[in-house]
């Protein structure tokens, strides 16, 4: 398995872990919900950053096929990120249209979900492209 594929697997594991953490543990915390979501987001970013170092990924060492896959998956990830942000923002606005104020927890969740979605799309696309094409 190439370093970029290993990075994708680490990202997916981190996404599953922190999504489960937010989904299961956050409802149990009453007093500082949005802070906990942002902490989970920071934790995920650290896992992504550390994962890249652990698998030994050096972007300068990638060959042209790896770089081609990285560009394509980057584009797919940005589309996924944008789609989640757009749909999430519209849903939040409609959910809170009577108050004209979006709760901090919802904003934090939107940031968390969109960031996770970006890396999930990136990771899945990397794994698929390495298997099927470039």
């Amino acid at each position, binding site marked *: 398995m190439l370093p970029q594929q290993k990075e994708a697997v680490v990202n997916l594991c981190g996404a599953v872990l922190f999504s489960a953490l937010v989904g299961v543990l956050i409802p149990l915390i009453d007093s500082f919900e949005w802070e906990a979501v942002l902490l989970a987001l920071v934790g995920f970013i650290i896992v992504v950053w550390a994962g890249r170092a652990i698998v030994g990924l050096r972007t300068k060492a990638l*060959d*042209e*096929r790896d770089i081609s896959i990285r560009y394509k998956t980057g584009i797919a990830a940005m589309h996924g990120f944008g789609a989640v942000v757009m749909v999430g923002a519209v849903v939040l606005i409609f959910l809170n249209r009577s108050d004209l104020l979006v709760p901090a927890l919802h904003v934090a969740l939107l940031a968390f979900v969109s960031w996770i979605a970006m890396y999930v799309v990136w990771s899945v696309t990397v794994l698929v492209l390495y298997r099927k*094409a*470039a």
Partner: protein
Amino acid sequence: MTQEELAQRVGVTRQTIIALEARRYVPSLVLAMRIARVFGKSVEEVFILETEERA
């Protein structure tokens, strides 16, 4: 020559050579020329343009 040896000589991974052989990856012109140079042949002798077949 093994895939690994060819990969090392042209500066890519073995997986890229495998993808080339399986027609899952179209190389850049630079890589195609490097591979052709390794075999001492022209690019046209190593790679075939399949445009007519697909059309």
